[in-house]
């Protein structure tokens, strides 16, 4: 495991991206909320609608709000053209700004409603125009309350910005999501500390401004403003140094195998002279779209996933045919280059303890049919609802004595402790090797195949240097090598970082 301090200080680029994203979202929130608050203070219906809308937005979980902007922006492409980004900074900015709206708006409207009526009467009485009244009386008297709203919004936004990782925007959520998946707690802790620290510092600075405004101390609020501005400019300067259009962006979904393969691909590209950037922990649904739109250059996806989610197919034409159809569709419809299959599958499969399979003399699902009525099958909570299970059950006529649901982690424990005789497993899962399990063969090809394959975005599809650097990976990783690498990251003791595991994997496969 890398040293904790190394991890923490290695987060500079994530921190800079986080600061810029959060500051932009709060800025946009302020720019929308303040005029809206002025309007609301002069019209009761506007106040009701605006506050109602902002409260409604607040009830949507931040993660869902971020994800919702993908289809919204996608449909807006009809208006703004294909250049409109659907992932990354723009949707994150919009979702977070919407989220920041409520506290600012509510405080501003409340502040206006609570202004001393005598003071407002005096403002009219001395002959202020409505603009002078706003500028000379309402704004300065509301400022401390509005600032308190901005403060609340800032703390929320800095926290919620960690979730923008899932829609492909780098942030301090990157180490948190990566760490959660690989159970690398140092990484999670570093991300949380950095994000919480940032929130605390911003809260303190904005608190200084708020007190300065309340006590009418120009020095206090001026100093706070300068410090905030310095932080934002610092982040901008840091980031503009690292921006490069020539960078290859590699995606990974939220599990260890993806992190390892992303590192493996990244290191090969770096050796070939490319600059590489990782987008870790993306939502599974997001990855494919991100590659098609060239927001991301390289991703590993699985044939079964694309078959069901992108092509909306439920039939099973067999492993080779499925790959052929997908490759043709990707290259014809999307301009995405399918470089090739890596050589292993991460499919649903049925696994048993090696000794138990030997005692019962089982090697395939066909053998299982006869003894199944005496056995218990375990699966993750959704498994028995999935088409994969229904397909297998009907293809072989499998009838078990009992079906039990386990969370994925406990599924393997259930098998070793004998609470389940057969479980649904993922074929590349490291625990298959570690727990000495056997995967039952599927001679009737009832389980759809999940061949891992390399996708290259349209933007990079014709980059022959890049293709040459990655070509050796095609067909090079067998399932045992992948299982070992996954287990090295997933195990609870002596675990490796995805980067280290990728280095070992490269050695094992002779690259």
């Amino acid at each position, binding site marked *: 495991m890398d040293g904790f301090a190394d991890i923490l200080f290695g987060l500079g680029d994530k921190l800079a991206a986080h600061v810029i994203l959060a500051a932009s979202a709060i800025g946009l929130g302020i720019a929308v909320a303040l005029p809206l608050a002025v309007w609301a203070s002069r019209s009761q219906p506007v106040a009701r609608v605006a506050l109602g809308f902002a409260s409604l937005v607040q009830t949507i979980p931040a993660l869902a709000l971020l994800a919702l902007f993908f289809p919204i922006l996608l449909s807006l492409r009809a208006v703004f053209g294909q250049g409109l980004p659907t992932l990354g900074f723009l949707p994150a900015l919009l979702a977070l700004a919407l989220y920041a709206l409520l506290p600012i708006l509510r405080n501003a409207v409340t502040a206006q409603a609570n202004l001393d*009526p005598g003071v407002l009467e*005096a403002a*009219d009485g001395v002959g202020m*125009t409505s603009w002078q009244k706003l500028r000379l009386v309402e704004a300065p008297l509301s400022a401390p309350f509005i600032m308190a709203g901005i403060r609340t919004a800032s703390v929320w936004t800095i926290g919620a910005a960690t979730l923008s990782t899932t829609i492909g925007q780098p942030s301090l959520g990157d180490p948190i999501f990566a760490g959660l998946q690989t159970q690398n707690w140092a990484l999670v802790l570093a991300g949380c500390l950095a994000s919480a620290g940032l929130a605390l510092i911003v809260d303190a600075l904005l608190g200084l401004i708020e007190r300065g405004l309340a006590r009418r101390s120009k020095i206090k609020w001026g100093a706070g403003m300068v410090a905030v501005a310095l932080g934002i400019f610092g982040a901008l300067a840091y980031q503009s140094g690292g921006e490069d259009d020539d960078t290859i962006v590699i995606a990974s979904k939220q599990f260890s195998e993806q992190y390892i393969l992303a590192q493996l691909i990244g290191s090969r590209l770096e050796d070939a002279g490319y600059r590489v950037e990782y987008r870790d922990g993306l939502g599974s649904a997001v990855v494919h779209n991100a590659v098609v739109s060239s927001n991301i250059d390289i991703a590993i996806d699985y044939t079964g996933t694309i078959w069901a989610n992108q092509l909306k197919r439920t039939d099973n034409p067999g492993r080779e045919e499925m790959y052929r159809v997908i490759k043709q569709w990707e290259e014809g419809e999307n301009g995405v280059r399918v470089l090739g299959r890596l050589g292993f599958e991460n499919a649903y499969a049925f696994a048993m303890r090696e000794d138990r399979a030997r005692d019962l003399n089982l090697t395939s699902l066909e053998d299982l049919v006869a003894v199944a009525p005496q056995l218990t099958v375990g699966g993750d909570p959704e498994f028995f609802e999935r088409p994969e299970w229904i397909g297998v059950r009907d293809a072989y006529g499998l009838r078990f004595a009992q079906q039990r649901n386990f969370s994925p982690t406990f599924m393997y424990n259930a098998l070793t402790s004998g609470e389940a005789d057969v479980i649904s497993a993922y074929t590349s899962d490291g625990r298959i090797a570690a727990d000495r399990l056997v995967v039952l063969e599927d001679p009737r090809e009832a389980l759809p195949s999940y061949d891992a394959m390399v996708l290259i975005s349209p933007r990079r599809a014709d980059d022959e240097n890049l293709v040459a650097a990655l070509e050796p990976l095609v067909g090079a990783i067998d399932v045992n090598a992948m299982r070992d690498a996954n287990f090295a990251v997933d195990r609870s003791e002596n675990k490796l970082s995805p980067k280290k595991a990728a280095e070992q994997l490269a050695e094992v496969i002779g690259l």
Partner: protein
Amino acid sequence: MSRSYGDVVAVDSVTCEIAQGSFVALVGASGSGKSTLLKMVNMLEVPSSGRVLFAGGDVTQQPPAKLRRRIGYVFQGIGLFPHLRVGENIAIGPRLSGEGLPEARIAELLELVELEPDMASRMPDELSGGQRQRVGVARALAIEPELLLMDEPFGALDPITRDALGEKVRELHEKLGLTTIMVTHDMAEALLLADRVLVMDTGEIVADETPEALLVGQGGEIAQGLVAVPRQQAERLAAMEGRLA
């Protein structure tokens, strides 16, 4: 002119003329329409029907903000701007017209209402209620108003401060040659300060007399009912003094 809110008529077909240089008191019970009538002069209230002529022109001929910069306005709530210093509060009217007010003039205005000139640098919340209303008067005078409107100006003050400030305002009225309209529910205050008293009841002017005429019993039942209160108080006090003597 009239002013109604839905079915409620606050001011009911009132016609009256106020001569330049006079000190007029508008007296009546709560809800009699006296404040509404006053506020129609500087357009804080807009007449439902009828019009207000000021210095020969209809008040609606100019933007309300511009009109109000010519008319001093003092009211019970005082309404000093809490985020501005006393001096800045006094100078607000000229500042709005884009002129500004020299410090010497602020000091002069403070002296006029019997406050120390160094109070200009204080914040309003450092002042007592009486001091604040003095600043309110100074603010109204800063624009050298052609007309001074006062809506229950001393209503929230203690009796001693109230009496002193009333005297002061009357003195300034003479000294600066102002035209003053003051709303009050206190007939004694009206009789002592004004040279013309309008009595209002349910939106109408029911009496229009000099203080002297009211004291000798003119003006009708409602006006005499209001005059009776301070008179009886004075008589009872005199009787008590008599018993003590």
